[in-house]
């Protein structure tokens, strides 16, 4: 394995007096796709924000390679209506340069037709695609995507993960994904990290899907390991965010 881009070691985070992460370690290496999974409130976004340097850690260390270029796709951003800003200008902020580069990035993300639109007029899904284009435009060493598959149908998700693999192969970058969709993620990832404030289990998808901790955490939603095909078994409920219901209460993998 080549030198890590980001190395998070034994990090703990407390937000507003509550412990959100405790003793979490994570290594991101070039060319690898890592996915964080876990129930709501497990600290997935917080861990991603630790990697990005947006959250102060209580202890532990976060090492980033010097000159690391990061592309970040947050779930959503809201631009004030008073700011007249087209998609093209929005991308220019991330990487000033020729129009052709911005057009290519938008095309890659599948939203070339939005270039001259005002960012305030975009739907949530369109904004996500534009944010993806902005992240790609920077030719990042590390791409961090927070719930990129949210509100995208299965076909769209397949296309998205296909795109991410292409990007990884082309740029040789590391990709860190946050997702709640277990099956598809399992098929498209090099490494899975199950999070419940601490790392419950981690490894390649096959290993994780056999890990008792993974099944404890996700219950029947984890299903049988079916890595190639997305099969939506209706033996569990989904809430509005598509999370399986079994773990709205604190999961069994919670050693507090």
């Amino acid at each position, binding site marked *: 394995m080549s030198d890590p881009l980001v190395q998070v070691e034994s990090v703990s985070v407390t937000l507003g007096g509550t412990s959100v992460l405790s003793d979490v370690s994570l290594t991101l290496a070039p060319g690898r796709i890592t996915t964080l999974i876990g129930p709501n409130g497990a600290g997935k976004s917080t861990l991603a924000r630790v990697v990005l340097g947006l959250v102060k850690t209580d202890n532990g260390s976060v090492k980033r390679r010097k000159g690391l270029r990061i592309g970040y796709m947050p779930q959503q951003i809201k*631009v004030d209506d*008073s700011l007249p800003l*087209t998609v093209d200008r929005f991308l220019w902020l991330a990487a000033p340069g020729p129009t052709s580069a911005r057009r290519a990035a938008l095309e890659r993300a599948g939203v070339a037709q939005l270039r001259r639109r005002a960012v305030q007029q975009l739907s949530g899904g369109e904004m996500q695609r534009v944010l993806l284009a902005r992240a790609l435009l920077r030719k990042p060493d590390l791409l961090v995507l927070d719930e990129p598959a949210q509100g995208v149908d299965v076909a769209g998700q397949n296309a998205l993960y296909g795109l991410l693999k292409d990007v990884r192969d082309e740029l040789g970058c590391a990709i860190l994904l946050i997702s709640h969709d277990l099956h598809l993620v399992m098929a498209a990832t090099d490494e899975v990290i199950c999070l419940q404030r601490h790392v419950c289990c981690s490894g390649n998808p096959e290993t994780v899907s056999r890990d008792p901790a993974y099944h404890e955490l996700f219950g029947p939603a984890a299903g049988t390991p079916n890595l190639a095909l997305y099969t939506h078994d209706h033996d569990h409920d989904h809430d509005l965010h598509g999370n399986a219901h079994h773990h709205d209460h604190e999961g069994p993998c919670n050693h507090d």
Partner: protein
Amino acid sequence: MIELLLPPLLAGLAVALVSGPMGAFVVWRRMAFFGDTLAHGALLGAALGLALEVNLYLAVVAVCLGLAAALTALQHQRQLAGDTLLGIVAHTTLALGVIAISLQTGIQVDLFAYLFGDLLAVGWNDVIGLWGGAVVILVLMLWQWRALLSITVSEELAQVEGVAVQRTRLLLMLLLALLIAGAIRTVGVLLITSLLVIPAASARRLTHTPAQMALVASLLGILSVLVGLAVSWFANTPVGPSIVVAASGLFVLTLLRKPS
């Protein structure tokens, strides 16, 4: 007549020119009340400057920056909303400023001039200082334009992309404090925010990019100063308020235009 009107005119134009881009940021970042609070603090700064016999502009800038730092620190507590805090600080500093000015012995200070501006009393020294300040502010804004705009769109994206967010935010505060210090003599403490906010708000309906909006805001501000001064000259109305009313008139005119 021209040698009487020229210094006020040039001073007003300098302030209006800078107020365009600065006001655009105030509108985009929803800092209108924040700017207002700094402006109120400016009166306290002026009073301190008089009492300590130091340069008035320096005293105002120092107090504004101190206030900005204090407000930023206060915003970390969560029980009171930001505008409540600003309300407390704005009116406390205004009250302190009025008291401090009334305590000055020896010289008679015209409080009205500080509150509503006294553009007609501006001399050539002020004009040179204001244009110097205006050039400094505009050059710094141009130089840091992309960073300033980045943190306005999204501070988190900006930080991830390597923009020095804290430093850029501090720069914006510093420039705002400089502008307020300069504007205190032209439109006065109570009307500064309007010169920042109104032309920028008018420009919003007429433009499609941030740079256009900043530029058009400058032009509308300049037009407001010209109209306000003319009205003040011919109708013998107070200058500062006349400029603000002119700016508001332009805003109403832009409302007639259908948003694109």
